[in-house]
């Protein structure tokens, strides 16, 4: 019964705190993403293109990827973190999509 209570208590806790989950998150990764955006603005400027607008990925979105320009590094941790991919669409315009990725810096974990 203890387990049942525990699971119940946690579900309630989790649900109630969901509202706040979006709040102060990603403090650590904020700078990384800003650096990446700046680099991509410079990339666009150097090629005389319009700087890419950052779009957050949603399910059902059709991505018109003609050529991948750059993906932001995910090697700074092993947990879920924000990542950005900049690409050229079929009309040659630069686009940046922001999404969630698992960090690739996991140790061997055996």
């Amino acid at each position: 019964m203890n387990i049942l209570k525990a699971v119940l208590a946690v579900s309630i806790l989790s649900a109630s705190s969901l509202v706040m989950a979006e709040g102060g998150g990603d403090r650590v990764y904020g700078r990384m993403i800003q650096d990446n955006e700046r680099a991509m603005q410079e990339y666009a400027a150097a090629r005389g293109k319009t700087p890419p607008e950052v779009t957050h990925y949603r399910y059902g979105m059709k991505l018109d990827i003609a050529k991948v320009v750059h993906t932001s590094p995910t090697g700074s941790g092993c947990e879920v973190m924000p990542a950005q991919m900049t690409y050229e669409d079929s009309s040659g315009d630069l686009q940046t999509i922001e999404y969630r990725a698992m960090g690739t810096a996991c140790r061997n974990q055996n």
Partner: protein
Amino acid sequence: MNNPLFCLSLIALSIGTGQAAIAAEEKAEGFVEGSSLTILNRNLYFNRDFRKGQSSGTGNGYSEEWAHGIIGQFESGFTEGTVGFGIDAFAMLGLKLDSGDGRSGAGGSVDVMPYNSAGQPEDDYSKVGGAVKARFMDTVIKAGDVFPVSPVVQYGDSRLLPESFRGITVANNSIDGLALQGGRLHSMSEPNSSSMRDGFATFYAGSVDAPWIAYFGGDYSVNDNVGISLYTSRLKDAWNQYYAGTTLSYPLSDDVALIGGLNYYKAVDEGKQHLGSFDNNIWSGKAGVQFGAHTVMVGIQRNNGDDDFDYLRQSDSIYLDNSIQYSDFNSPKEKSWQVRYDLDMEPFGVPGLSFMTRYAQGWDADYTNANEVYMRRGDDGNPLTDQKRWERDIEAKYVVQAGSLKDMSFRIRQATTRATDFESDLDEVRLIVEYPLEVL
């Protein structure tokens, strides 16, 4: 401590007080403003299927455990002033979902849940602990339960709840690009232990009567492409370890980069030589190329020592390239190579999905000159020589991108390994589902 409800009330209490405090105070970078509270829900399924009739200790050649972990961690900011003070605290709970005699417990090999004196897995267990911390200029000192990250002491987190150590750590970031750290730890808590004050144990020798482990070292970024690390540690009366490593990355174009690295450890017996006398070294190197969504890497590794390269139990204090899901390719005199392929599905329009596979092979492992602690003998009583093994790993990861389950991650890890007498033949599957929640 072994009471889930107590554990939960602690989490609840932290949430409650945190919210109240935030409302009361609106200062930048203070004790409260700098606080974070995270709750990670982790669901873990783990099995090992021993082949060739080899026993897992459960008697039937099979180990299996399924459990749920709730990891609540609170980190305060620092009080204002020349010297800032703060606290870190955690409350963690592990719940058995499916497990039992014949598959887990004392004879099992996957060590997810702790087990009772009869060798049966417990229904639940918890970890509760914390540390006090102080910050002066660019130096942070912590005393209490800590989670060190370094090549010589690295807490492990490959089971249900993370490993921790108790002691004092110091970290300094005064010089741009240079991160220095050190510590002196006098006990450890393995992932499936509720006690924060267990004695030290190593992977290959088990319990070792060492009073403390101390370590010191640093990571230096020479530039964007080159990083260097130097560390040393002493497990009192067991070993002195010295580590040197470098990471390299060199972009050839926007979308193509070369990656590489070297790792070197030297381990020498110390004091009362509880792990016998030894003077070993082991090194590894890797080189690879990343082009768009693809990364291909080749690694080589060689143990020049007469003994296994050993490290703290369930820790990840082995930054060698061929240390992979099951095998470390760290047996005496063992040589090995590895090839690894990573695929990121984002460029193909599926953000959050990635795959990895690798194959590694080791040969020439030779226990002829191993000391009495690490010696392994064959049925004929002679030291094992000319030992070989291989391992293949396959991994898939996915992160939910939107909705109320945003950031929930799924990770499946499969490993198959075959070996001559010195190691096991087994197939392994791990399923890890995690849901991180940032409360503060």
